[in-house]
């Protein structure tokens, strides 16, 4: 009787402590073994502050009258994949490259065109001043943006941008940022690691693409439309904590938003937000509905020149 009682007590105690240990460390375990399913901690800030100071710089372009731009192009990219590493997975059902991919060779050519024609990539401060009509910028100005914060941006786009001395905005879904480093795999749906961000913060201006609202509900409606204003605010607020930007910008996941969304991000003191409406950007545009031109995988170099109004 004493024996049976001890066995039971011992087993219960053992199971209890064992489960307690697993439970206490569950975050760590999930993080280490299922990186895809883990999400970046809500209260953690990726400290990039000093390294992002350049985003607030405003240059004096010393333009003669008539040389100033009255419209510019904001380019939008998602993934940049090396031509050699393209696999079946990168194609859609109709055997054409997915819309979000631009081949590295194409991207290289496009940047070379910008360089050749003396294009200037704007900092977010310059861009804002331009929109408010407070700064004259050269006609050949452009704002390069990336959405989602894919790891390939660091591995493929960053070196090219760096080579040309270009900068770009990178809108990251902060819940996808990984604290631990993992090997780059062009096939996987990998996002920036903290280390990637720290290594590329001289070129990329990291801004918010929401914390974990780059999703659609079961009816296929984007969270920024489907969810109520309060939960949208909460989610985006987390991304702002993660990024800790002094002058936060935003881009709408899927480019979808409504008046409530705009109110939410306005409440969060976000200065401007980008859509995917295909148009040039002119001073006086609504700061919460800034158009962008998507660069598609099948764009020719002529298409590209047209996008940047290069005739």
């Amino acid at each position, binding site marked *: 009787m004493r024996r049976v009682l001890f066995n039971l007590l*011992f087993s219960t105690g053992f199971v209890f402590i064992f489960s307690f*240990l697993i439970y206490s*460390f569950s975050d760590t375990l999930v993080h280490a073994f299922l990186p895809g399913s883990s999400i970046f901690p809500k209260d953690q800030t990726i400290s990039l502050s000093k390294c992002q100071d350049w985003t607030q710089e405003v240059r004096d372009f010393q333009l003669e009258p008539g040389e100033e731009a009255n419209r510019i192009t904001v380019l939008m990219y998602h993934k940049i994949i090396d031509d050699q590493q393209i696999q079946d997975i990168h194609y859609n059902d109709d055997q054409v490259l997915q819309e979000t991919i631009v081949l590295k060779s194409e991207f290289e050519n496009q940047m070379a065109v910008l360089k050749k024609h003396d294009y200037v990539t704007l900092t977010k401060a310059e861009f804002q001043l331009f929109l408010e009509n407070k700064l004259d910028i050269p006609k050949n100005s452009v704002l390069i943006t990336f959405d989602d914060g894919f790891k390939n941006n660091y591995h493929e786009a960053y070196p090219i941008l760096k080579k040309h001395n270009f900068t770009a905005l990178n809108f990251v879904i902060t819940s996808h940022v990984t604290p631990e480093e993992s090997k780059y795999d062009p096939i996987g749906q990998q996002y920036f690691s903290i280390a990637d961000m720290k290594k590329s913060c001289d070129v990329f201006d990291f801004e918010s693409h929401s914390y974990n609202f780059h999703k659609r509900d079961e009816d296929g409606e984007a969270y920024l439309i489907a969810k109520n204003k309060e939960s949208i605010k909460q989610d985006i607020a987390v991304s702002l904590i993660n990024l800790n930007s002094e002058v936060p910008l935003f881009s709408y996941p899927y480019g979808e938003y409504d008046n409530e969304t705009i109110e939410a991000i306005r409440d969060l003191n976000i200065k401007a937000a980008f859509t995917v409406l295909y148009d040039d950007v002119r001073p006086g545009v609504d700061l919460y509905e800034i158009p962008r031109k998507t660069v598609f995988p099948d764009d020719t170099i002529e298409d590209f020149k047209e996008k940047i109004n290069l005739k």
Partner: protein
Amino acid sequence: MEWIALALFSTFILFQMLYIFIPLYTIKGNKDVKKLKVEKGFSILIPAFNEEKTILNCLQGIVNLNYKNFEAIFINDGSSDQTLELLTDYLDLRPLSRTSSTFTQFERINGFYQSEKHPNIFVLDKANGGKADALNAGIAYSLRKLVITLDADSILEPNALTVMNQAFEDKKVIAAGGMVQISQGFTGSHVKPKPVFNVPGLIRYQIIQYLTDFYLHKTTQAKLKSITVIAGAFGAFQKQALIEVNGYRKTVGEDLDITLRMHKLIKAKYKKHKLIFVPNACCYTECPENYRGLFSQRFRWQKGFIDCLIHFRKSYFKNLGIPVSIYILIDSLILGTLNAYPTMIIPIILLITKNYEMALFFLAITFLLALSRSMVAMVVAGRFGHHYSNWDKLKVSLFIPFEILTYRLLGLVFVTVGTILFFKNKNSWNRVDRVGMNKQNYGEGIRIPRKEVG
């Protein structure tokens, strides 16, 4: 990297859980010794090489057995000390001629003697050939059907053969391992030994290890048909089986080797037979009291393990059977040797990958398992009558957590250095320094006068 760590660690957890829960739920604790009417015949073989300090203690144990139908053969393996003289003096030896069986070769025999004082005790004097060789000679000269192998530094508990006799009632038992206790952990008479814990830390560590290794590991392995080793200190075999495998092989790990050969024999010929562990058949052995002695003993064990591991490389699974192969290759090799010590190596992997929290988690789980295992070992030992006083219980419970974080790490050194030594110097026969200390006695009436050794 992390996945390798997780796989290793999960395996480690699984094996540890088996060692904890199988004994916990299966050992009911049966202390009664049933005396059978018929005593089966045993030949006790005691190989002795320079054992002058301990040989008479061993003899005391033999003389005090509560058993009649046995013969004990001390095999003097060419000792250069007083071992033979001590035996001659005490036993009053007379030469005897006995024809030996010729199942295998062994070194030259100088003489076979019978004791006038105890007619069932014999001495076989031979040229030095190592433990395996001595055992083979002993088998050849033995007459009974069951063979007990006993180390010269081990003392049989008076009821040891009575219990073994009962164990071999089951005709399917081909070999049986006895319980080996550390003699320094007992005080009082051999008839009613009392466990004590007021001993140095190094011995405490070995006491806990022996209780765990025997009561938990051997019980579990016996249940899973995977006893990897019947300890050389005290084992029992069907002589026929020993002869069928041509006796012992010359190796530092002759006990592991013969156990594995028993498994091969079962697999090849005696499908229904088995190896068992008999926890109530006890012997007391003197463990090393200093680091030098302990290291030398453990390096030898590890060398023996590696030697057998390689020797049986073509026999795993097919010839040895699945259970024992799994235990040798996974529990002993991967978890025990390759990993050196899971508690250490896995955190190291994780520290390399800078996953400190994970390392902490693994350490916490390992600590929990180690603690539970030692706790269950003590509880199970209690069920077999190994009761400490309350004061000693307190000492044990304070010592165990400390031991897990200190002494137990020695295991890392044993397996690493032992493995390296094996590959550097395959044939050296390291020996343990015997101190000949014995806290137990037989009471005034049967005390054997110790001759001063000069």
